């Protein structure tokens, strides 16, 4: 008895309208704000003293800021997967997941851009990217595709929101005047006429078609920041596909975690059903297997040859300094979730939540392992440099800023869910009219 199509439009509307924070919601938001504020404080320290507050050095010149950036870019790809690919493939059960994935995309790509500014030694010279930009540099490609993806994702989120804004303006008594004012400012022009609806549908289709190549670009270009150098572990033609597949995996994992949390907190059991978990579970298994496949290519092929420059790097990962983290990322980020999710019992919400968390946490450390160990194995020996440059463990400022950025992403999602319905009301109602009996 859990199909939403059994409900009347009025019930769907009242179920899905944004609700004020409860006690837990307030606590959650306060905790996130606190973490974000500590991060902001650490960044002020960094602005005052320079990047010396980090534990980066001339060898590890990119640390967790960059791996966190790669993580954010990766997880933001999910917006294109769930919305665009599912829409173009006409996947009927996508409705309750699209908005969740779109807001993850927008918030993650926003903080990806911010964390890059945090990593800059001269953030005040950011405008030089436009004044003196060199199109030959992969960084410029990243600037271009990330800003394009940000705008496209935001547009997609906005256009799909329009009919819901109309519904919310109608429900202003329930939502309060300040909110109603905001909704009117956002979309009072939307009347839902046939002509408007036609334009909206065509725009969504167009954006969905364009956002897929842009999404592939953002993560391929991000992988090229590494693959265009000579360094062992980065110098790989496999990198673009390897990054994109990993991005879809972590993004899908992120959506699973988010749909579980929203389902519990907003009591959406009738909208996000066990069937959705089952389907997402199958997709997650497929993506984890795909990413595992690319990992086998990425590590086993060079390990078979063991070229001199690769050797120190690979041994460090397999059995050396980074081995615990490396096997953690492989096992927890891919293999254990695969074993949980191949069984129908593993695709129940609770087990899925656990698998989703594992995928996301594993993916975060995986990005760290892609960035840092390579830098510790330069071609020439580490020499005539301070001893502390031969190791890297992030300073408290780096941890605080990174945690702050993660909290920032969650804050955007939390505030979004406070102001907008996290499942499209309009789409749920119209699905009711059209959906075939399952």
């Amino acid at each position: 008895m859990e199909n939403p199509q059994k409900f009347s439009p009025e019930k769907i509307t009242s179920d899905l309208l944004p609700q004020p924070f409860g006690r837990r919601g307030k606590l959650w938001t306060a905790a996130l704000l606190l973490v974000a504020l500590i991060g902001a404080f650490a960044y002020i320290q960094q602005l005052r003293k320079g990047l010396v507050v980090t534990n980066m050095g001339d060898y590890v010149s990119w640390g967790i800021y960059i791996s966190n950036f790669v993580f954010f870019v990766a997880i933001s790809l999910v917006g294109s997967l769930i919305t665009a690919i599912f829409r173009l493939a006409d996947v009927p059960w996508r409705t309750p997941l699209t908005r969740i994935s779109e807001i993850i995309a927008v918030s993650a790509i926003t903080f990806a851009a911010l964390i890059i500014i945090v990593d800059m030694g001269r953030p005040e010279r950011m405008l030089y990217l436009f004044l003196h930009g060199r199109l030959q540099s992969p960084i410029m490609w990243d600037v271009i595709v990330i800003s394009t993806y940000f705008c496209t994702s935001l547009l997609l989120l906005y256009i799909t929101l329009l009919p819901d804004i109309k519904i919310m303006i109608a429900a202003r008594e329930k939502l309060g005047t300040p909110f109603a004012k905001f909704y009117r400012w956002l979309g009072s022009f939307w009347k839902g006429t046939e002509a408007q609806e036609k334009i909206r549908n065509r725009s969504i289709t167009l954006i969905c078609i364009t956002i897929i190549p842009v999404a592939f670009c953002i993560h391929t270009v991000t992988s090229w920041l590494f693959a265009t150098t000579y360094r062992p572990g980065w110098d790989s033609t496999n990198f673009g596909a390897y990054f994109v597949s990993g991005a879809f995996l972590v993004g899908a994992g992120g959506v699973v975690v988010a749909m579980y949390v929203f389902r519990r907190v907003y009591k959406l059991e009738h909208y996000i059903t066990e069937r959705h978990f089952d389907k997402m579970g199958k997709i997650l298994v497929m993506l984890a297997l795909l990413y595992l496949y690319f990992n086998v290519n990425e590590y086993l092929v060079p390990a078979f040859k063991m070229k001199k420059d690769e050797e120190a790097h690979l041994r460090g990962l397999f059995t050396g300094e980074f081995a615990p983290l490396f096997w953690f990322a492989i096992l927890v980020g891919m293999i254990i979730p695969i074993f949980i999710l191949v069984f129908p019992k593993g695709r129940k919400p609770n087990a899925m939540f656990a698998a989703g968390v594992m995928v996301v946490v594993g993916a975060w450390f995986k990005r760290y392992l892609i960035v840092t160990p390579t830098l510790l194995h330069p071609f020439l020996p580490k020499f005539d440099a301070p001893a502390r440059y031969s190791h890297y463990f992030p300073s408290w400022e780096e941890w605080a800023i990174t945690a702050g950025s993660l909290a920032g992403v969650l804050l955007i999602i939390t505030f979004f869910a406070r102001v907008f319905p996290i499942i499209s009301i309009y789409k749920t109602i119209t699905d009711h009219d059209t959906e075939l009996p399952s």
Partner: protein
Amino acid sequence: MSIEKSRREFIAAGLLTTMAAVACNSKKTPFTPEEDVQPSGEKVKLLSVDGEIIEVDKAFLKPVPHMPSVSNEEIRKGIPGKKFAMVIDLSRCKNLKKCQSACNHMHHVHSEQNWIKVYQMQDAEMTAPYFQPTTCMHCDEPPCVKVCPVDATFKRQDGIVLIDSDRCIGCRFCMAACPYSTRVFNWEEPELTADVAAQTYSAETSVPQKRGTVGKCDFCPDMTRMGMLPHCVSACPNGVFFFGDINEDSVTNGSETFRFSDLVKDKSGYRLMEDLGTKPSVYYLPPVNRNFKFEEGLKNDEPAAKKA
């Protein structure tokens, strides 16, 4: 003689002040001193441009640099007609690190960092160890320049790769791209004395260095402009470093001069990581018939090791 010098200085100072005043479009007349200098009361007699003897307060005299300043545009072009190269003779290196200390001193490199590194190398288990000083390779296909998003690091027509610290945004992509680990980053505010910090920045001197930007060996183009050798070359007592111009086909370490092409051919010169296709401007002569034993050189590391 001192009056002669002061006269030149005075005229040059006057001209510079005029130019500065015009450039800044400030309200100052060319005759007001740049800063609020208090007259010392001590007068100096000078010959004016019109040939008259005039008296000026000593406090208003300002020393001017010996060389005319080079514009950023000229710096980015390089010295016309030149193609600089370096030859490092590994058979002569005794790990004295005079090159390193001279370079660090002249460029005010951070006390823990080095632009020149002297590696202890051993290519294979059974082969002999040797010392290998490395500078920036000033590649003809520089990977660092390729990846720079803002043209802060650039390749000049005379072959030198420089960094414009007024342009660098501190993204450190060039450090990841350089396979020779030659670049260092100013993680903190450089430790500079007040007079060094007050110098006008030039990408040719790399002084004063700036926080949040990348630094590296610059082949001392300020010295070459004056027809002098880079600091590492003149500091090395063993004549390890040869510097010169490929177009002239000659390199020198100050006391010996060789035809560059002959030297590199006769002594089987090579470049580091040739397989990467970076085409360095720094050539190495293999460590054969060495002047010193490797162990002897190791002793030179001891004081440095103690310091660390």
